[in-house]
Structures are given as C-alpha cells and as structure tokens.
C-alpha cells in the first residue's frame, strides 16, 4: 500500500507524482545492477536535476523550487522508496548548498547559488575527519591565510560524492581555538592539488562513493569564505539540523519500501495451508512495521512543519532522525524475517534495505549523538 500523503497544495501533489513516475522509470530499473556494481548513477542525478528536484528547498530567485520542507521531504521519501543512495545524494547536495544559501553574502549567492541550484552540479559536504566524526571540533585540516585567500592542508574523511561532486563545502581550521577556530569554504572540484582517495568499501549504499579527500596547499580565494572567520562550526551544525531532516525522510522512504515488499510477499507466500500474512504472529509483525513507518513519517513531518513555520527545530530534527532511522533499521530487519530464507539471499532486495538502513543510524550524527543533542536541550530547557 503506497504511503497515504497529506500535501498542502495541488502543485505539491503533482510534484510527488512527477517524482514517483520519474523514479519508477529512471531509478527503479537500475538500482539492483548499479548497487551490485558500485556504480554511481550520475546521469540519473542529471535527470532529477533537470526536473528541478535537486534544488527544491531553495529560493526561486536563485533557481530553486522554494518548497516547504514538508513537501521537499516527501519528495525525498519517494526517491528513497526506489533508491536510497540517490535520496541520500539529493539530501547531501541540499546540505552542501545550505551554508552558501544561509550564510553567504548577497554577492556570493548571486555569483554561485544559481549554478549550485541549476541541477547540473552536484555538491559534497566535508566536515568529518578520520579521528573527528562525532566530535567535529577535533578537526585538523587547516586553512592558512595568505595575501589573497587561504591554503587548505590535510585530509577529510567519509565524503559522500567524493570524486564525483562538482563542488565541496569544506570546513577547516583557521585558528587553534577548538570551537571558534573553524571556518567554512566553497571549493570547486577542479581546484589544483585536491586528491581523491579510492572509495571506501562499504556494506551498503554502494552506488554512492564515499572517499577521503586530501588537500595539499589548495589555494582558495578569500571570496570563497562562507560566513565569518571562525563561524564554521556553528554553520556546520546549523546545516546538519536541516540535513538530519533529509536523512530522516530518506529512512522513512526506505522503511515504507521494506514494509510494502514484506506485505506483498506475505500475501503470496503460503505456509501451513494459508498465506503467511494470515498467521497472526506474522500479521502482528507487519502491523508493528506499519506502525513504525507511519510514526516515523509523522515525527519527521512534524519537525519539518516547525521549520517551515520559522520555529526552533533543532531538537525536533534530532528526534526525527533518531526515530526514523531506528524505525528503518527495525523495519528492514523485520522485512528480511518476513521473507524467511529468501530474504537472506541477494535474489531479493530486502537484505540490501537492511544494509542501507544501518548507515542512516550512523551518518549526520550517530544516533548516540542525536540523544546527546536531545538531552542537552532537555537539560537547558
């Protein structure tokens, strides 16, 4: 049963339909093959970009779709329903545009945002380092001031779209002040002296490359500093508040897919003379899966509506990311259970869903870090 959506406008409904049709035709036929071959679907991103799906939450004046998060997140869900790695990519792209769109000067936005939002380019977000994941303030990559800009040195880790992206939003140290010494830069992929390492060999999301990136005296003009010197960490965390909503929606879409596949199988498969869905023990498992997906969606969209209404949403975004990704993990694991032995084989996609769900509990802040954020809000409030 496809998700029952509540959408605020008729164009939102048409947008969802366009997304579903496009993803059915362009993504669904390729996902299994590309995931198995670790092949990045760059052309498919271009098709989505051309339709305007890579810039939905950003202002129309810069080429975006100016859609509320309530709508944008449901688009992400529909993409994730067909191909989680692509939805993650769309979310990471939006995350990469966020610092410029939110903290850039009008001149910087005028100059760069239209091309970032054109749908032709793909972005990447470079915050983590090998020893600084949960604790980004421990980062070591440096940006040393020169006469007309900065020189970047050091190695970033875990960069989604590393080597495949056209621009990189990079956080680097401009002073040794732990939290106040980090700044944000917009770096083009073609800038000399950037080296992309080979992609990590991951257990899931294999179509999406994740690499380390080394900077060796990479010259960045002063005009590419986003926000103030030293403002980088707070820009990064603010971007992640929005990014987490994207990951939550991606998890909801994946969970919905696992649920639908499990239900379809349970109606067909018979044991002890009847469809397994009619055995109450299994029917209840499916019911719990449905409850998990629907509450994850409700929690995610509740956070989105807070954001759309201009309210504080950082805590709500952490709750959504925690609830939705834990739900996706549970639901995808249960989907394997519903399919029995078949579920454990690569002939069916549910084992892949399970591998894909796992990383959602890890990136953009592990779910322990989400609890940290939530509990700090509680302590403060």
């Amino acid at each position: 049963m496809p998700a029952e959506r509540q959408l605020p406008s008729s164009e939102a409904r048409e947008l969802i339909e366009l997304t579903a049709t496009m993803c059915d035709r362009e993504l669904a036929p390729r996902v299994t093959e590309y995931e198995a071959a670790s092949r990045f679907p760059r052309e498919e991103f271009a098709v989505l970009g051309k339709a305007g799906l890579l810039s939905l939450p950003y202002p129309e004046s810069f080429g975006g779709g100016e859609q509320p998060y309530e709508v944008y997140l449901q688009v992400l869900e529909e993409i994730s329903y067909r191909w989680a790695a692509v939805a993650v990519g769309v979310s990471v792209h939006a995350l990469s545009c966020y610092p410029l769109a939110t903290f850039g000067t009008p001149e910087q936005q005028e100059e760069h945002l239209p091309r970032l939002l054109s749908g032709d380019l793909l972005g990447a977000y470079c915050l983590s380092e090998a020893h600084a994941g949960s604790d980004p303030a421990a980062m070591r990559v440096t940006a040393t001031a020169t006469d007309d800009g900065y020189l970047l040195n050091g190695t970033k880790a875990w960069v989604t779209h590393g080597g495949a992206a056209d621009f990189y939003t990079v956080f680097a140290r401009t002073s040794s002040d732990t939290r106040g010494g980090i700044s944000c830069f917009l770096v083009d992929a073609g800038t000399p002296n950037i080296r992309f390492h080979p992609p990590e060999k991951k257990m899931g999301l294999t179509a999406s490359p994740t690499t380390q990136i080394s900077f060796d005296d990479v010259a960045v003009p002063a005009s590419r500093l986003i926000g103030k010197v030293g403002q980088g960490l707070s820009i990064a965390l603010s971007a992640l508040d929005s990014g987490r909503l994207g990951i939550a929606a991606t998890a909801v879409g994946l969970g919905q897919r696992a649920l639908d596949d499990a239900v379809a199988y349970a109606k067909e498969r018979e044991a002890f003379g009847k469809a397994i869905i009619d055995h109450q023990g299994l029917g209840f498992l499916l019911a719990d899966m449905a409850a998990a997906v629907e509450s994850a969606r409700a929690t995610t969209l509740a956070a989105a509506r807070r954001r759309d209404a201009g309210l504080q949403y950082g805590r709500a975004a952490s709750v959504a990311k925690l609830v939705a990704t834990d739900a996706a993990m549970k639901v995808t694991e249960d989907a394997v259970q519903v399919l029995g032995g078949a579920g454990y084989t690569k002939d069916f996609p549910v084992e892949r869903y399970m591998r894909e769900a796992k990383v959602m509990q890890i990136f953009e802040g592990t779910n322990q870090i989400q609890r940290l954020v939530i509990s700090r809000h509680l302590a403060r409030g």
Partner: protein
Amino acid sequence: MNIVVTVKQVPDTWAEKKLDASDKTVDRKSVDNVMNEMDEYGVEEALKIKEAHGGEVTVVTMGPEKAVETIRKALSMGADKAVHLTDESLHGSDALATSAALAKVISTLSPDLIITSSEASDARGGVMGALLAERLGLPQLTQARKVTVDPGANKVSVERLADNGYALVEATLPAVVGVVEKINQPRYPSFKGIMAAKKKPLTKLSAADAGLDAGSVGLAGATSTVVDAQPAPPRQSGTIVKDEGDGGAKVAAFLAAQKLI
C-alpha cells in the same frame, strides 16, 4: 507554426480496465487516469517542432472534468495553451462523434499542423488521426517515426513506418500527422513547468460552446452500440508432453491433431 496536439486521458495502463455495467462505456471513475502514454510522444514532437521553428502549441482534449489533469501535464511539459471540451452530453461518444467534435474545435484554432498519436491505450481504435484529417479536409501522414517541417516551403514530410523499413511521404501544410513511439523520447515535466502550467490559458468548452448539436454526440448520437462485452477468458494451461524417447512423435501428433501440420 501554430501546432495543435490532441491528447486523451485514459485509464492507467496497468489498471484492470472495466466497462460500466449500466451503459457499457469505459469505467473511468474507479481507476487512476493518466495521459495516454503515446500522446506524450505527440506532445514532445510538437514541442520540438516549436523549438525549431517558433510558434505555439495548443493542447486539445475531449473528456470528463478529470481530463484537466492530462491537460496540465501537457502544459507542464511545455505546451502553451489548451482547450478542454467537456460536457455530460459527450459521454459515450464513439469514434465518429469524437472526431466530429474534435474537428469542430480544432478548425476554430486554424492550425498549421495537427499532431495525434497513433493509438490510445483504452479503446485502441487507432483511427482518430485519419478521421480528423478526413473531417478537416487535410492530408494525413500517419505512423510517423520522424517528422520534418519546412515552414518556408509550406511542407511537412515524415518517415512512415512500414513492414520492412519506412516510406518517405510528404504533404503541404496544414496537415494531420500521427506519430508512433519510436519518434522521440518524451521529456519529463519540470517542477518549474508544473508551476508555470497553472498560469497558462485553458479554455473550457461545453458542447454548446463548441457549436455541437447535442443529438449528434454522446451515447445518443453514437452510430454504433456496444451490446454486450465479456472479459477475455483466462489463458488455459498448455499440454505438457513428457519425453520418454518418443517426445518428437508425440509433439507431431499433437500438432497434427490441431491441424497445424
């Protein structure tokens, strides 16, 4: 170039198609309705011709209120304006009546080129292009897998699909062209297209607005009547021949019994 492209809303290709029990017309209420997929190729071709030669693309459809969704899809792909002929009295129109109504509407638009697709996926008459050409007194170039327009010479030529290749046929403008799905790759609407479609002119016509005589259209005016209809019987399972050394002979005997050899 003033181009008219006809589009039809049909039950979703994957939906189980049913006839309304009361009047034996296609049941459009109980299913999802979409733009006839072949018409996406017609719209795409119209847009490509417009992009190459300038002009305007007008979408024309006859269908219930809901068919406006199909119009909006064509507009969001990039068509400029639309005419929606809709009226309770049109319900149940057969191919002849449909073509008469469409021809009447199209003639008021004085197009240089009229594009239809070769077949709608519901009734699959595959006749509308020919009927429209006849009613409008225009040349018809159907089954086109490639269209070349030369507005300067007032000419259109097409590669017409044939059994072992294609025939090159041409006509003077205005003309009716029917396209097949080999012709192009229809574009997706873009989100900006969806937003822009809201602001494009859409003319809604009743049968009276279009100057149609109520008695000549709809079930009342149909020249043919659907008396009865049955769903196709499920396919029977085949005969399995077990090869115990005499498989070939058994197969031959089976084929002979069916008078196939």
